[in-house]
């Protein structure tokens, strides 16, 4: 008889030395179901997934049942053998290997072979790629592919290992809208073939598009399972955070004089004819599709990407940053999009990470590091950005994805920049905390900071931008202020060329 449930898990707890990440959690997934696993940053989603992957061992007493069979212990090999396949937040692929090997290696490994059958590997890879109906050359090095294609390779790898349940940890955070649509189409095909998909994401709108059931975790505890049709955004959010959250529009107190002016900035292949002004106390939102040149453009303001042409004026005088440290010295801070990877020394503790960029200011009269001031400074920002757990000594690598992001933000705020450039400020940050980050940004602006915020999330752009630039294919395609800022006009400018309508 077919099992109604592919996976049934009960009494799963996981205790780390510093926290209880999971506390008696249950989790059941039906065969052929698309299931959302949601919760705030640090709620325990990734930990639960890693237990199912056999990466972490749960505390004793956990009950795990796959297709009706009670499983004693999982390790990475047996987990795959039971049909569980995980696409981790970072994909866990190998940039130095070919597409074919990336797809086939785990299934071959799982068969316990010691010798490599290259022909068979290619066949396995071919089959999976054909199933997805995408065009990716088997022999190219994975590292040469775009993020979206790498994502597809990760899915192909799951298929190749005959996955019956594919778990995706925040799969859409690096994808554009069009790419997300392709992903969803593939998910529906998988579902039609009886494969269960578990989807972890902070983007609730997307989850409503594909998921049938929501499982909610809060502080490591199981809150419940809810069918999608009985849910809406605000119900989900209040279950996740235990209170209701709204995106209030936060208005600027006072906008001051021009601090940064950009004139005709151009870089071949990146962006063209970019001109705008930034004022003290202002939050300038820059939006547009992923790949519209936003990130490349702000890289140029930070000395990371040398423009071919154009002028950058800081306080009225032209500047030319050769390196990011020049930009930092001039009072500019840049919080990159890919924070977990770019911004942290994972083995060092949170305290040292937050104060890394300001060490030279935290010295005593002997020019040695003043540990007490360092701790004070770190604790101030830990509180300000609300990192959980608020343990300054915990290594950065042990924080959940979203909390690691906050640490990077804290690190840059600690430099007291005059201009803050922040790329996707709430990427990977849970809905409750988004509003907190927005309030913090507004507070900083009110205290006189000028902020450039790149964001793909329209509600966010609408909530806190004083002015919005919309980029399309490397150019500024529209500019909106105050009451002109609304989703319709922004979407129009993001998707359509200037002169076309409809």
């Amino acid at each position, binding site marked *: 008889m077919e099992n109604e449930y592919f996976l049934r898990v009960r009494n799963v707890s996981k205790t780390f030395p510093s926290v209880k990440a999971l506390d008696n959690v249950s989790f059941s997934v039906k065969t052929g179901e698309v299931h959302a696993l949601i919760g705030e940053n640090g709620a325990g989603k990734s930990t639960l997934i890693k237990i199912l*992957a056999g*990466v972490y061992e749960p505390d004793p007493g956990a009950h795990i049942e796959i297709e009706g069979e009670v499983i004693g212990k999982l*390790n*990475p*090999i047996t987990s*795959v053998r039971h049909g569980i396949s*995980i696409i*981790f937040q*970072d994909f*866990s*692929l*190998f*940039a*130095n*290997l070919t597409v074919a*090997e990336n797809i086939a*290696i*785990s299934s*071959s*490994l*799982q068969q316990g*072979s*010691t*010798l*490599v059958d290259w022909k068979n590997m290619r066949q396995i890879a071919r089959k999976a790629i054909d199933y997805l109906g995408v065009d990716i050359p088997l022999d190219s090095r994975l*590292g*040469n592919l*775009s993020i979206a294609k790498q994502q597809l390779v990760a899915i192909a790898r799951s298929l190749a290992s005959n996955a019956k349940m594919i778990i995706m940890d925040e799969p859409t955070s690096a994808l554009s809208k069009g790419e997300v649509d392709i992903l969803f189409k593939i998910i529906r095909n998988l579902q039609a073939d009886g494969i269960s998909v578990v989807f972890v994401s902070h983007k609730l709108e997307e989850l409503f598009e594909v998921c049938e059931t929501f499982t909610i975790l809060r502080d490591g505890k199981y809150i419940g399972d809810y069918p999608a049709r009985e849910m809406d955004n605000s119900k989900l959010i209040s279950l996740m955070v235990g209170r209701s959250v709204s995106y209030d529009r936060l208005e600027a107190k006072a906008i001051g004089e021009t601090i940064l002016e950009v004139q005709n900035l151009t870089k*071949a*292949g*990146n*962006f*063209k004819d970019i001109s705008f002004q930034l004022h003290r106390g202002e939050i300038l939102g820059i939006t547009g599709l992923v*790949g*519209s*040149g936003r*990130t*490349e453009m702000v890289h140029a303001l930070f000395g990371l990407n040398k423009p071919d042409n154009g002028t950058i004026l800081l306080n009225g005088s032209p500047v030319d940053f050769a390196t990011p440290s020049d930009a930092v010295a001039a009072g500019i801070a840049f919080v990159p999009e890919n924070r977990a990877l770019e911004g942290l020394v994972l083995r060092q503790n949170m305290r040292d990470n937050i104060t890394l960029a300001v060490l030279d200011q935290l010295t005593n009269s002997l020019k040695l590091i003043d540990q007490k001031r360092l701790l004070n400074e770190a604790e101030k920002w830990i509180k300000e950005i609300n990192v959980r757990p608020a343990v300054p000594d915990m290594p950065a690598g042990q924080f959940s994805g979203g909390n690691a992001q906050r640490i990077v933000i804290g690190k840059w705020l600690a430099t007291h920049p005059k201009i803050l450039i922040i790329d996707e400020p709430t990427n990977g940050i849970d809905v409750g905390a988004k509003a907190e980050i927005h309030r913090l940004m507004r507070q900083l602006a009110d205290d006189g900071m000028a902020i450039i915020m790149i964001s793909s999330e329209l509600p966010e752009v609408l909530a806190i931008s004083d002015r919005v630039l919309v980029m*399309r*294919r*490397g*150019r500024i395609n529209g500019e909106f202020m105050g009451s002109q800022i609304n989703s319709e006009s922004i979407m129009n400018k993001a998707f359509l*060329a200037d002169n076309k309508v409809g």
Partner: protein
Amino acid sequence: MKEWMKTKEFMILMIVIAVFLIISIGNPTAFLTTGNIFDIVKSNLVLAIAAMGMLPIILTGGIDVSVGALMGVASVMSAYFMIHVSDNIALGFLAGALSGILFGAVNGAFIAFMKMPPIVATLGTLSIYQGLMNFITNGNWITNIPAGFVEFGKTYLFDLVPVQFIFLIVMVALTWWLLKYTYWGRGVFAIGGNIISAERIGFNVKRLQFMLYMFIGFVSGIAGVVRTSIFGQVDPKVFTGFELKVIGAVVVGGASTSGGYGSVLGTLLGVVLMGLLENGMILLKIPTFWQKIFIGSVILFAVTADILRAKRAEAKRIKVDVA
């Protein structure tokens, strides 16, 4: 440009050819003789074998600076074995290989199971193995190698190919096969690409790392005994500083020091290049200190080129389609 012309190996080959031409023009009478070419081959054969052990380690992003000491200890052990226990040639090689494996396993245990950084662990054992070797030999040469073995070392196949060449070919073929056709070898590449992912998809990373350091022990053991067969004696000091050459050859051969990229062919070309440079500088009568400075610069250049290449590849990926 054809795809294969863009590979690192092709670039290194071009450099090898250029260096070859420069030296031939600079000193044609001494360089282009069969005797000299055979000298180059013979004196770099041991280096090439040892590099086969180093390549997989560098591919995982690790390093073994004790390789010279491993070779030294293994050749001393095998020499004593042949002198005092049995003069059987095969057993002599076996003794060298086994002691190499044993000492390599010590390195592997520290690195894989105690999670010690490879540079620290092997730096420590480098000193221990060297001390051990000096203790056993009193720093003296071992010259009473059994005659049968010395004779064996002078054998030529078809009156042309030195017997040591066979060892080189076997070790190269073995390493190539292991890297390409076993999951151990693919695991080496996987670890070099992304160690966490390698663990997640089920590679036994600890065991694999442990075996890597045993493998270089094995290879160094063979290389050490091969050297004994060439010179008919063991000089316990000759391997001091040899690690620079071995690591240098692998890196100059295009292997990335951060792991993941590199090949057997590239490493062989790296050995040839290093060998040619060394020989060429001697023939061109360049003072020793300049030779050292030059070799060091070549290694730094190779590493720099690798880093720049990686950066450029990264930059190429953030391209935007501008209207």
